[in-house]
């Protein structure tokens, strides 16, 4: 198995490095606005925006050709400005959809996720219909439609692929924006009404964030594909939120996770499929979609964090609860012995079976052993009895917990 992995990775060339760099930059660029989307509980906005930009792009496309046909601009300018047009159209529709969602939500008292659902499906359907009616001459390549094309990086000027340069600058822009507006973003995510009283227009910040997200989505698409964009928008930020409680650290952790995701994702795309499918009898399977694999890795990293996160992980929480239950079991036993001792004047040894067993057998067994080991109780012929140390401990607990004033 190890040799197979080695074999899969042996083909790693500078090309793969560029893929990883491109994907990592794009992932980091997406993860930054994602941190704030997760904070504002609008994570599904990424998925929604990736649909709503369709009519924007189609409209911009039509407008551009409309201008050319009306001879307002020359064919060459039209071709040169088309990318800008499309970009602008996508961003505008991104903001429009955010506004529409809020409008429906506020005006119709529709619950926010339903409002989002209504708006994004409608806009997307509108875009589809528009293509069918107007731009029928555009052939939509399902290949493009399905997959992001991280794998298609082409070397550009000075040895740096165009796509890499593009997502790199995107990351720089997003980073600058986040650093510049850090406190405004934080406060309007945390408490919009407070932000408004402080003179920060929470709504403007909301739309600005939506515009940034839409722009990031459109721009990052070229390098990684929409699946990865949507996942990267949310997964690293959510994973980071399990790992740390402080926002500045969370931003850094998010970026790190995005980077790791890209690296591991590509490595796994090169190795894992061959590993599995050669055993199933399909030696011709060598690799799989890098973008898809990165999304899977993002999910796996999240699951890891879900279990192993230091404070908020399930294992840590479970341990904490077990520890608490264990402590309570110890107290229960000490107290039961204590009360029994007070009742019987005979200096009292108490049968272990007589204890109030409100918890599992194992827990009681463990509690008994730990109490014996810490010399708080001692084993006797008939059961157990409190030692002087145990008596001190339980008296302390009782005075702390309840002032024995209860009737």
């Amino acid at each position, binding site marked *: 198995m190890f040799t197979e992995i080695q074999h899969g990775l042996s083909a790693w060339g500078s090309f793969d490095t560029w893929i990883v760099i491109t994907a990592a930059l794009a992932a980091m660029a997406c993860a930054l606005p994602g941190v704030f989307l997760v904070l504002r509980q609008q994570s599904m906005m990424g998925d929604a925006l990736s649909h709503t930009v369709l009519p924007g792009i189609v409209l911009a496309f039509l407008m551009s050709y409309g201008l050319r046909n009306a001879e307002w601009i020359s064919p060459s300018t039209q071709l040169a400005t088309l990318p800008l047009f499309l970009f602008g159209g996508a961003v505008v529709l991104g903001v429009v959809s955010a506004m529409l969602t809020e409008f429906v939500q506020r005006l119709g008292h529709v619950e926010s996720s339903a409002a989002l659902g209504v708006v994004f499906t409608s806009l997307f359907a509108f875009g589809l219909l528009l293509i069918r009616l107007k731009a029928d001459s555009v052939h939509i390549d399902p290949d*493009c*439609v399905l997959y992001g094309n991280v794998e298609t990086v082409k070397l550009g000027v000075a040895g740096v692929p165009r796509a890499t340069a593009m997502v790199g600058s995107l990351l720089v822009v997003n980073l600058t924006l986040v650093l510049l507006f850090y406190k405004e973003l934080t406060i309007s995510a945390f408490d919009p009404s407070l932000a408004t009283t402080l003179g920060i227009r929470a709504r403007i910040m909301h739309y600005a964030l939506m515009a940034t997200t839409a722009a990031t989505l459109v721009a990052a698409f070229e390098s990684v594909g929409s699946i990865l964009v949507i996942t990267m928008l949310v997964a690293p930020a959510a994973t980071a939120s399990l790992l740390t409680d402080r926002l500045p650290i969370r931003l850094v952790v998010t970026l790190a996770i995005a980077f790791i995701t890209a690296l591991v994702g590509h490595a796994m795309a090169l190795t894992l499929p061959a590993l599995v499918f050669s055993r199933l009898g399909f030696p011709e399977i060598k690799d799989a979609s890098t973008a898809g694999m990165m999304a899977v890795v993002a999910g796996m990293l999240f699951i890891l964090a879900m279990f192993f996160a230091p404070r908020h992980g399930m294992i840590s929480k479970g341990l904490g609860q077990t520890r608490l239950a264990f402590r309570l079991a110890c107290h229960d036993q000490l107290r039961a012995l204590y009360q029994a001792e007070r009742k019987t004047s005979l200096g009292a040894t108490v049968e272990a079976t007589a204890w109030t067993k409100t918890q599992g057998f194992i827990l009681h067994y463990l509690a008994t052993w730990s109490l014996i080991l810490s010399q708080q109780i001692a084993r006797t012929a008939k059961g157990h009895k409190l030692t002087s140390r145990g008596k001190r401990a339980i008296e302390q607990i009782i005075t702390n917990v309840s002032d024995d004033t209860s009737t």
Partner: protein
Amino acid sequence: MSFQRQLDWPSKTGSFAVRRSAMQTAICLLFIVWSNQEITAQISPHSEASGQGHQTTSQKPAGSLADNRLAWPAAADVKRVLLMQDYNTRIVLWGTTTLGLAAGITGTFLLLRKRSLLGDVVGHASLPGVAIAFLIMELREPQSGKWLPGLLIGASISGIAGMVSTVIIRSCTRIKEDAALAITLGAFYGLGIVLFTIIQKLPTGSQAGLGNFIYGNTATITQSEVDLIWRVAIVAIVAAGLLFKEFGLLCFDEQFASSQGWPVVLLDLILMGLVVAVCVIGLRSVGLLLVVALLIIPAASARFWTEKLSHMTFCAAVIGVVSCYVGAVSSALFSRLAAGAVIVLTGSVMFCASLCFGTRRGVLLRWYTRRRLNQRIATQQLLLAIFETVETALLPNPQQALTDVTVTLEDLLPKRSWTAKQLRRSLHEAQKAQYLASHPGRGHRLTAQGGRAAHRAARNHRLWELYLLQHADVAPGHVDRDADRIEQILDPEIISGLESALFKKYPQMAAS
């Protein structure tokens, strides 16, 4: 160098319900333009349902956007489609409308449970299931991979897995619902993509057309598939009907349900299972995005029309059926309309109409009630102001009645902070309500009816004020100054106590 993969996806326009995504579509456009390619035009047969044959692919220059008009169908075609004489049309209509019905009903509960976007997640999450089911079937027996029930079972299993993982993430970590949904969606969809790239490379060659399954293709539905769809839909509808009150309780008050001993988790699973079933069958027939829309839009629209759960469910079902019917019929009639998109847009139009005109929560209705309320408050305030003016005027000669005194605009204007325009409008309204009689040149007088109303307004207002003073500790929660309902809200003994205080303070009020 480029690794761009050439795939064998069907590129009939029927598969236009290209799901994922706008972005990719867009970038394809970008790509095409940047590489200065000629855009390939694919005028393809609109659908088998309308009985046209395949046409050839022609080349068009990028800029040419001519021929955008919809060709109106002949009357005979309209009749044929509407009467469902055409076999293909019939099964397409039958399949989609049943789906609309089931989606409307389950969507209602989904909306009320505030999980509208779960459909989106389930749809994405079902992709790896389809791929795995295909792979398993291919491994067992080559060329058998596209057996629909098998694919549907695979899709359901992974759809449920996706749903369960959102629930686990939400309940076991501090991640909020939205992020849980988005992560599940991304990870499962990514896995689906990985598996599909692998399937593309399989040497068996039987993967062609699998895309129809994922991206939906209304036009290529076959009879056997429709049979399956409507059976699943009927099961979903019957289950929702039987468990109607249980689902209602679950959505309204989960805590109470569990304190009553209802198996909340099981009920929730059944409900979500229905959603998965609808998603999965919808996936095949109209495509993922459109299922999401069908689950959300009819339910959200229905909410504007009714305040009763059963009516809302019925209404959502009707809206779902109508959208599906309109969509399927129009795509059969107009060769350029994609069924899925029209279904959603019909729904959207109905949503907008409901938003505006809904008889229970519609915007217009709420706007009208708000205006009525404001008017009523304005009238009350006017009557109060008139009463106070008249009262002072009557103090020297208490024999006269309220209706004997004329008040002018100038008398009233300083009473409150209202503009002359507002005051005039209120006066006008009060005249229309016959509270006031206008005496041109001199001013206004209260009518007998108006006198009684003004007296009541003043009495209530003053009683409330006294109540606020005397019972300051409990009062604020109870005061409803505008209402005539002081008797309904306060105890009789409190009121009589207040009244005696009132008459002490304003002896003139006791007389009238």
